[in-house]
């Protein structure tokens, strides 16, 4: 814990805050108009993620920095980091929580498998993600066998313990979770385990960034790039988003000082008119990433077009099992197809994630869609923009 506490030093945070403030004064007056939150205070003073549209304060121009990763979003909220930033620096929470962007169709498929009597093993935070009709938590309350676990290895243990049961692991996550989950398949094959399959919904970060970059509605001045994902894919993976037509991409760790340092790096680039990849998390992230993990990923899986809740299908943004591992593929073994979920046409999460609409612009906000009964990813995540606005508007 000593190691972690070193990255939470209040004195160092003060110094970084001062650096960020003086850099922000030198920012070019560009980007989206600034925002105020629903209380009329500048958004950055309340911890509520700012959103444009109706809450604009035309006097302040802001620089929009998207933190792509859900763990950054959580850490920013937990340490009140928005509160430390000048009014013209705005953080937008990107689609970087793999649970929140899980499509309704995937949840429907998992529940269908449970209804057939299979034992479903899932990460706990998937329980409340809504499918088209119900959630895994509600399905479990009907008596279906749905177990939560902190680690995929639990699925393998269950498969060993219950050779008479078919176990399905809900394999979701970004690049970080892929290699350990696939290593499990290797182990299962070695042991000759026949009763374990995976319902796969792995997602990839760079294709999502690509989709956001090319979205004409979106005005992002820089990306704060994920810590752990970058450890796998490497700093070089962000090169395509930088350069002449690109934006600064700064990789930062998840500790508060890491994030402040990352934001300082972003502002330095913006002030100096640069747009390059900067690795502020050098203690973990290498230029080429983790080759071993990348090899495992390539051996077991291949890219596929997959659906992101609230955004829709993004080309080559997911991974599916290769043919030679079909025995572990829940879709093939149990003859089920993960449907592409219908996007509720009223849900504006896609626009909220992109920062082009605010929660109040959504007709379902606070009525049909609430934290205990969420529709879109911004409400599913406790730190999503809509959930945060809901918290304040009560």
């Amino acid at each position, binding site marked *: *814990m000593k190691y*972690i506490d070193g990255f*939470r030093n*209040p004195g160092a*945070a*003060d110094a970084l*805050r001062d650096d960020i403030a003086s850099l922000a004064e030198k920012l070019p007056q560009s980007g989206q108009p600034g925002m105020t939150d629903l209380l009329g205070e500048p958004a950055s*003073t*309340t*911890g509520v993620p700012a959103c444009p549209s109706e809450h604009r304060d035309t006097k302040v121009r802001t620089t929009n920095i998207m933190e792509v990763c859900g763990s950054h979003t*959580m850490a920013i*909220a*937990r*340490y*009140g*980091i*928005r*509160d*430390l930033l000048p009014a013209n620096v705005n953080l937008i929470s990107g689609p970087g929580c793999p649970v929140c962007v899980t499509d309704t169709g995937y949840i429907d498929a998992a529940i269908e498998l449970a209804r057939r009597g299979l034992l479903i093993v899932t990460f*706990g935070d998937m*329980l*409340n993600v809504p499918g088209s009709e119900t959630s895994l*938590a509600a399905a479990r309350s009907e008596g279906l066998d749905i177990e939560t676990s*902190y680690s995929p290895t639990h699925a393998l243990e269950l498969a060993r313990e219950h050779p008479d049961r078919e176990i399905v692991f809900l394999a979701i996550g970004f690049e970080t979770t892929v290699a350990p989950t696939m290593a499990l398949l290797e182990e299962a094959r070695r042991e000759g385990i026949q009763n374990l399959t995976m319902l796969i919904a792995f997602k990839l970060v760079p294709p999502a960034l690509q989709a956001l970059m090319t979205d004409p509605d979106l005005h992002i001045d820089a990306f704060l790039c994920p810590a752990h994902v970058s450890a796998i894919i490497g700093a070089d993976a962000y090169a395509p988003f930088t350069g002449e037509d690109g934006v600064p991409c700064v990789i930062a760790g998840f500790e*508060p000082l890491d994030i*402040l340092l990352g934001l300082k790096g972003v502002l330095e680039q913006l002030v100096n008119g640069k747009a390059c990849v900067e690795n502020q998390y050098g203690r973990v992230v290498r230029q080429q990433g983790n080759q071993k993990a990348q090899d495992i990923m390539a051996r077991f899986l291949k890219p596929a077009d997959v659906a992101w809740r609230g955004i829709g299908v993004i080309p080559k943004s997911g991974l599916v099992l290769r043919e030679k591992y079909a025995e572990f593929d829940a879709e093939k073994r149990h003859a089920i197809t993960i449907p592409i979920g219908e996007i509720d046409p009223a849900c504006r999460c896609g626009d909220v994630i992109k920062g082009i609409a605010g929660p109040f612009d959504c007709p379902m906000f606070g009525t049909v869609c609430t*934290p*205990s009964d969420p529709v879109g990813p911004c409400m599913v995540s*406790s730190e999503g923009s809509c959930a945060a606005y809901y*918290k*304040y508007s*009560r």
Partner: protein
Amino acid sequence: MPVHKEDRILLAHGGGGRLSRDLIDAEIVSRFGDGPLKGLPDGATLPISSDHMVFTTDSFVVQPIEFPGGNIGDLAVHGTVNDIAVCGGVPRWLSLGLILEEGLPLDLLRRVLDSLKAAADACDVTVATGDTKVVAAGQCDGLFINTAGVGEKLETFQLSPANLQPGDRILVSGPVGDHGFAVLAARESIHIQNGPQSDSAPVHRLVQAALPQAADVRFMRDPTRGGLASVLNEMVEDAPIGISLKEEHIPVSPGAHAVSELLGLDPLHVASEGRLLMVCSATSAPDILTAWQALPEGQQAIEIGEVTSEAGRVVLQTLMGGRRLVDVPRGELLPRIC
């Protein structure tokens, strides 16, 4: 005295016949049979010396039944004793309802009852009445306990969240979240050296230590399920006041801190089972803290924040100098931890 050669609970132990009687004699009467339980009457007749009594009940279904720092037995005493204590009562009497699952190892039942007895003695409460049922395998998870409690009201305490005024201080008697993290680590088989130990303990002596300042004590709670965050949010709900906390002052033990980092859980959301949260006037806070710190269970007592005029909001001043809302945990964080 062996109750059955198999040394496991059988359905017949709940059948009301010879085996039932043997179980009650060997395990219940032997431990609790000296007081009002003597002769096993249908109900207990109890002397009460105060004008008002405090009456509460709680059920305990924790898994695992035994965890680092305690088991369901002492938890069932502390939970009910603490509910009485934070209402300004002196705990006196407990009822003991046991629901046993067929197949429960008798050794485990004995360990639980030994802990329960030791905890009751330490809290100076008496098990006055009880009931034991056996259900078929699969109908409960090993062992469930219900305890109801009766206490004598300390009339000098006038406690209500409506008493809270801006400037009042928030005190906590020790590190928060240890119980929840200990149970979670045990349940998930997370093995950490010097990992969290349950803080399961009584708080009634802490309450009594604040008696000289009773007029300045506004409200008390024990932050169990939902943790500090839930208790504090309940206090300010629909109220014209809010609460401001200082993260640097909130005590979290190293073991709990490690598990919280590992699992990404906020210690403010996690249960304690032996901590007292008190709101008191600013002038009385130093004296109460001094009195608490003189007790073994209050050595790490500290002021963690104050009441504000920011209506309905619990705000945390973070270590980094930022501010954030402290929300109530949503859904199941730690199912069945008490």
